[in-house]
C-alpha cells in the first residue's frame, strides 16, 4: 500500500472515529439524563 493510500485510510477511519466516539458519548449523556430523570428522582437534587 502506498504512503498516500495509507494516509487516506488513517484520515478516513481516524476523523470519522473521532466523530463517531464523541457522537456516541453525546448520545450517552442524553440517555443518562433521561434515565436519571425517569428513575432517579429530581435531577437538581442529584
Amino acid at each position, binding site marked *: 500500500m502506498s504512503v498516500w493510500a495509507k494516509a487516506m485510510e*488513517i484520515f478516513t*477511519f481516524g476523523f470519522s*472515529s*473521532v*466523530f463517531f466516539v*464523541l457522537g456516541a458519548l453525546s448520545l*450517552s*449523556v442524553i440517555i*443518562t439524563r433521561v434515565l436519571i430523570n425517569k428513575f*432517579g428522582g429530581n435531577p437538581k437534587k442529584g
Partner: protein
Amino acid sequence: MVDALFNFINSMGVYHLTVGNLIMWAISFGLMFLAIRKGYEPLLLIPIGFGVFIVNLPLTNLMENHQILHIFYHYGLEWELIPPIIFLGLGAMTDFGPVIANPKTLLLGAAAQFGVYIAFFFALGLGFTIPEACSIGIIGGADGPTTIFTTVALAPHLLGATAVAAYSYMALVPVIQPPLIKMMTTKKERLIRMKQLRPVSKRQKIIFPLVTCGLVCLFVPASAALMAMFMLGNFFRESGVVERLSGTAQNELMNIVTIFLGIAVGGTMSAEAFLNPKALMVFAMGLVAFSFSTIGGLLLAKLMNVFSKEKINPMIGAAGVSAVPMAARVVQKMGAAEDPRNFLLMHAMGPNVAGVIGTVVAAGIFLTMAQ
C-alpha cells in the same frame, strides 16, 4: 607538563562548546523569557527551557545512560508514565458540567481535530514518514501530554520539537485564534447570545467519567492509558468522597510530574537532535495544525446553526482546540468585546473539554494505525 595542561583544558566543557550549543542556549533563554516576562505556560516552559540549557552544556552528558535527564526521560516518557499522570491531575481539575449540560458541544470538540489531519497531510507532503506525520498532526489537538504520548510511541526523535511546538502554540492561543475567529465569523454571529446552561445533577457528573471511560476505551483501546487516567481523576473529583486523592492528583502529584516532564522534554533538545530543518518544519506544521483546528470547530458551529433552531455562537467552536481553559477565555473575551453582556465562557468550556477527549481519540487511532 604541556600535555597535562592540554588534557586539563580538554576536560573542560568550554573547550568543546559549539555554535549549535550557543544557539540552543539562545532558544532556552527565549523559552524562559517567554515564561517569566510574558507568563506563557511558565509551569512547562521554565523546566523545559532549563532542561535545554543544561543538556547543551558540553561534556555533562546528562542524557547519557544512567544520567539524571536520561532517567527522567526513560522512566517518565519512554515508559509512558508521565503523560497519563498529568491526565489524572487534569481530570481532577476538569468540570464536565458544561459538556453534560449541552452534549452537542462534544461534536465541536470532534470538528476541532480537523487541523490534526490537515497537518498530517502537509507533513507527509514535506517528506515526513507516516508515524512522524501523526506526531506532528497531533500538535493540532493543542494538548501537550497527548502530543508527548503519541510522539514517544511513534517518532521519539521529534519529541523536543513537537512538545515545544505544542506548548508554545498553546501559550499563543490568544494571539493565533482571534484573527482566525474574526475572519471566519460575521459580527452578527459573534453577537449571538446563548441560553444559560441547564443545571447538571451530581449523579450525572458521577456517571459521566464512567460512561466516557468505558465508551472511549471500548472503541479506541490504544487511548486507554490517557483516557482511563483522565476519567479516574474526574471520578475522584465528582465522587466527592476522596478529596485528599483529588487534591493530591491536581496539586502535589501534578506539580511533581510537571517538573519531570519539563526537564525530560528539555533534555531531548540537544543541538545535534534539534538543530535541523525537520524541527523547523515541525514548528511550521504545528501552526498549520492549530489554525485548521480552530477553523474546523468554527465551521461545524456555523453548520449546526443552519440546522438548529436554537442558535449557538459559532465562536465557541474555536474553543474545541483543547488548550484548556485558554481557548475558552479567548472566546469569552471576544464575545465581551462585541457585547459586554454576552457571557460565553461556560458555553465555550463545553467544546474546550470535549476537545481534550477528541484529541485523545485521534491519538489512539494514530497509535493503532500508524505503529
